[in-house]
């Protein structure tokens, strides 16, 4: 089944853990970890390549080839604290990969019996097409799509945990109030009647939900940091904030 951008199954293992797995001898686990990484982070790289002016085919080749190349060459084991976050590291080595690869090689690899990671390129291309109106630099686009992927993943994790705790129906109602939006505030009344909760109770529940989302988001970010702590998570948050146009 093709993987669409921002698949719900965001790895909650931390990056260091992923790295350990990638460095292990067990090819099965490595492949799985690679597939996980690829599934979650391929779109920003694809968008980056597209924004640089590569054609759809080229960008697809590059993105696919990159992960395969990364696995083969154990690139991720090189990642350490000095290389910053997974976000910047990935972009850096992807850029390096892009410039190293020759067209010939790429053509050879295409369909050459290699491991083939199926990516929802069409979905990605649609996403990208919608973004074409912006004038962002490729790096900025990468950061922004990365941030958006993370947000999607955090939302998905929140949804999963709420459902698991048996609060599924309530979550479905409340999730639209997640963002502190003045329009949403007025909406409490309308929801109150249908849900049987007082507006005040709804307000409190939403407040709780927001706190949980915060936790999910910070965890998702932590998963992309090496030795994360609160300050570093804040830093990364700030960087992503800038990417989203703040």
């Amino acid at each position, binding site marked *: 089944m093709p993987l669409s951008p921002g698949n719900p199954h965001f790895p909650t293992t931390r990056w260091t853990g992923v790295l350990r797995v990638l460095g292990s001898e067990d090819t099965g686990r490595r492949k799985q970890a690679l597939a996980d990484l690829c599934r979650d982070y391929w779109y920003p790289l694809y968008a980056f390549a597209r924004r640089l002016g590569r054609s759809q085919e080229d960008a697809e080749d590059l993105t696919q080839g990159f992960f395969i190349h990364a696995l083969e060459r154990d690139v991720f084991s090189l990642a350490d604290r000095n290389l910053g976050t997974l976000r910047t590291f990935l972009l850096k080595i992807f850029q390096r990969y892009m410039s190293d690869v020759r067209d010939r090689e790429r053509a050879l690899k295409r369909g050459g019996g290699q491991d083939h990671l199926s990516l929802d390129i069409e979905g990605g291309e*649609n996403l990208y097409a919608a973004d074409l109106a912006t004038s962002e*630099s490729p*790096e900025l686009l990468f*950061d*922004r799509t990365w941030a958006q992927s993370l947000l999607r993943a955090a939302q998905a994790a929140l949804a999963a945990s709420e459902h698991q705790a048996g609060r599924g129906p309530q979550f479905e109602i409340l999730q639209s109030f*997640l963002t*502190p939006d003045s329009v949403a505030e007025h909406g409490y009344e309308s929801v109150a009647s249908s849900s049987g909760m007082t507006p005040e109770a709804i307000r409190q529940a939403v407040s709780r939900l927001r706190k949980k989302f915060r936790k999910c988001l910070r965890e998702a970010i932590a998963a992309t940091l090496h030795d994360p702590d609160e300050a570093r998570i*804040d830093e990364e948050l700030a960087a992503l*904030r800038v990417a989203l146009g*703040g």
Partner: protein
Amino acid sequence: MNEDPSNPAGRQRGTWERDRALLDLGFGEDDGADDMRTGDSGPLEQAGDAIGRYRLISLLGSGGFGNVWLAEQTEPIRRQVALKLIKPGMDSREIIARFEAERQTLALMDHPNIARVLDAGTSATGRPYFVLELVAGKPITTHCDAFRLGLRERLELFIAVCHAVQHAHQKAILHRDLKPSNILVAEVDGKMVPKVIDFGIAKALGVSDEVIQSSLLATKAGVVVGTPDYMSPEQAGSTPDVDTRSDIYALGVILYELLTGKTPLAWRNPRLAFDEVLREIREGEPANPSLCVAKDANDHAAANLREQRGSETTRLIRSLRGDLDRVTMKALEKDRQRRYDTANALANDLRSYLDGEAVTAAAPTWSYRFGKFARRNKAVLMTVGLVAAALVTGTIVSLWQAHRADLSLAAAQSSKAEADANRLEANANRDKARQNLEQAKKAFDKYVGTVTDEPTLKTPEFSGLRSYLLEGAINFYENLDSDEGGDLQTRMDYARNLGRLGTLYHQTGNLPKALESLRKAVAMAEAIEAEFPNASYDRRASAMLANNLALPLTTAGNLTEAQAMRKLAVQLLEKHLSEHPGDPGVRHDFALVLSNYAVGLAGNGEMDEAEATYVRCLGIQSALATESTEPREIQQLGYLQGMAADLASRRGNHAKADAIYREAVELYESLASATPPNPGAREAAASFSVKRGDRLCQIGNPAAAVPAFEHAVEIFRALARELPNRPDLRLNAGDAKLKAGDALRDAGRLAEARSAYEEALALLERLAAEFPDVPKWQLSPAPALEKLAAMRTAAKEWPEARSLLNRAIGLQREKFSQSPGTEKQKLADLLKQLTEAHLQLGDYDVALTTAEGFSKMFPDDWEPWHWAALAGNRGLQIISTAAFPDEDSRKLTADLYAQRVVALLRQAVLNGYDGITRLQATQDLTLLAGHASFQDLLKNPPAPLDAEARLKRGLERSPLKFAIDYKASDPGRRLWERTDRTWTEIQPSGTRNLYTVSAVIKVNGIAGSELSRPDGKFTLFVPHRDEPSTLMMFKASGGAWGRFADIKDIE
């Protein structure tokens, strides 16, 4: 909630806001409670809560440290205040302790433009809070726009802010977070009063700079977003490091914003990724405020300021330009040492500006630009050894200072001196001082010499650096003691230094100052000579001063004065020479000075005197060259001989010129035999022999030139045999032989000319074969080949002519690929000649191919195509009379051939040839007339291309993609892509630049596209794919075309 990726509408910018808000939740407060349990939570404090003696009324806003509430103080007085409640999670006890320490200092801050910290304490739940004076006002930028304040009023407000900041700095309190939202303008008693808020809070909280850096970017939903716009470069570094000057930087940004409407970052590029923003802060060069306003005349600030009493944009620009620009940029210096030291300094400069006085912010000097230049070119500078030179300067300065100290000591002592003993000591000190100075000056002269002679520095890109380094020397000389009184020695010293100074000025292009210093120096020298006509002193130095003054005088057009100086130089040196008759150095200088004088005389038309002077200086120099084997003596002799011979020639006295050359040759040869092996002298003999031959040819006596050339050939050949490591001598021999051939040809001795050419050719081809790696020598046989070909052609010896032409063309193509501009014409000529040879030999097919190749070199001109068509016409004639197996094959061949010829004609017409009807009258086109394509062309001639069509055609020849390696700002590989007429350049940083193809032009004979920018600052040139050049050119508006980059990976 999950986005449907197939719905692009779901990805509009609107969703970004929601994403931003979602992301903001990631910040938030961590109240420590694990809310997965139960759960009440809400803001920890609420309206109505009492904190100390304050009651919270409503939430004003949030910052990185907590919330700001509007609160009411209940006792001892009722008033409204701003209460800043610090978020929990910060170690309260430590905060409070630090806080108390700061509190004293904060309380000491009493300034009308600083919001006072009224109180501080801890809440019942243990959270620290500050109580601040409530400022009801808008951020300063909003305020100025809302009230449409003009330039003066804005500056007045800003100056008040500076004073406030100064006040705090003097109490060692930094703000660290200055930005418009922290400078509120309130109305107090009908006046507008700016107040800076949040002073010192950060420090009191003991927050590290890293957290400040990230908190500057943090936000809470619904509140003003923090931006890094006001962050100073040192804060944006990897280890943030702040002092008072960081606050001044922030003030600079605010000033910039007040003047232009946006912060420097906002002007530069509105959308950058986080790391890029920090890099931009550290390294990006903001545009001057006046330029920003000029750029965007519709900008609101400009509009506001414009409306202020009808000042137009231009007036605004004018008032911004210059001092106000400089003041702003000084506050924004990346290097904080170059910024204003204090906020008051900034305020004072602004005050000066408003009062119409000079500001201290200097125009950017070369030393400032040198800093950036040095950083970029550090490697080059190191290799050139200039760092060492700079170190020397340092030593000199200390020596010089020692000298001054000693001198003043000596002066002091001598004034007190009574006894002789004291006087002796004073003199000893003075001598020591003088010694120090001499040492310093020697070292300095060496420094100046190094800089002046360093070849790297003579290249255009370093000329600025060279000037800068020499200007440093100027400073030194200007500051030397100006001891105008005093004894002869001191005065001479001073005059000499002035002379050096003047020469330096001349070399750095400052003509007025050069004249000023040199004139003064010479005046002093003249005064000294007048006072001490019989004393023995260094008249040589004075003479050189006068000689050197003549140079700038000539440049300035002061020819009479210049000549007077030269005469003075001669006189002084003569006198000096009489005292030091044998001194070779003096004689060398004397000969030189005499020759300069002679040049002046010749310029004045005093030819006889000039000649006589040359004779004199030649006499001196010949003797010198004979006595000493130093190369410089031989060189000067050669130089002087050349000058003398030139003069003789100009006077029409060719015999005399010839005699000079002959004598020169003899002199050198006798030198050589006197001091063997002396290759230098023999080489000089040979070159003079060549010069002699050249001159003889020029005056129309080639026969006499031949032996001169042959003599040179002999010498060069012999030298080349003796010095196998000097193969260039063989080149000289070959060239001289060629010239002999030319002379023989001109003298009508054709057979001998031919053998001379053949000999030259053989020699040069041997050289080329032995050194395949030296391109110059590979190409050296070309002239011989061409000349031989020309001879054969003239003699109608076609087969030989053709083979020679082919060889010549081979070499010429190589030359053409290297310098297409200069070598194109010759290649074209050779091709024409080859076409002719082919036709003469009956090879019509190859002839036409050659002619086509020739015309293709000029795709946009009609003459070559016309010529080629006519050549083709002759080919047709050959076909009509050549032997063919049968008539059908003849007809077929003729048909195909004719089509090609017509195609050539058609292209001629397209390119503007309008004489096709006349053509029939003047040429025999009967054979062409029979072909349908020709008739077609006559009936429906194509319209010549207009500019638009030419552009389109040019675009077909233009590449679609290429890459360049850019070495300057944002260095690296840049991709260029074209869509129709638009080129996009993608820089390594991701920035994109757009260009339009505005025309099809030729630069240095190469056709290509001209690219323009929207702002018209400069144009670029991209050669066509099929042109033999991959050189991209650049032209600033009003400038000339220059090399920009090599293009690669062309598609």
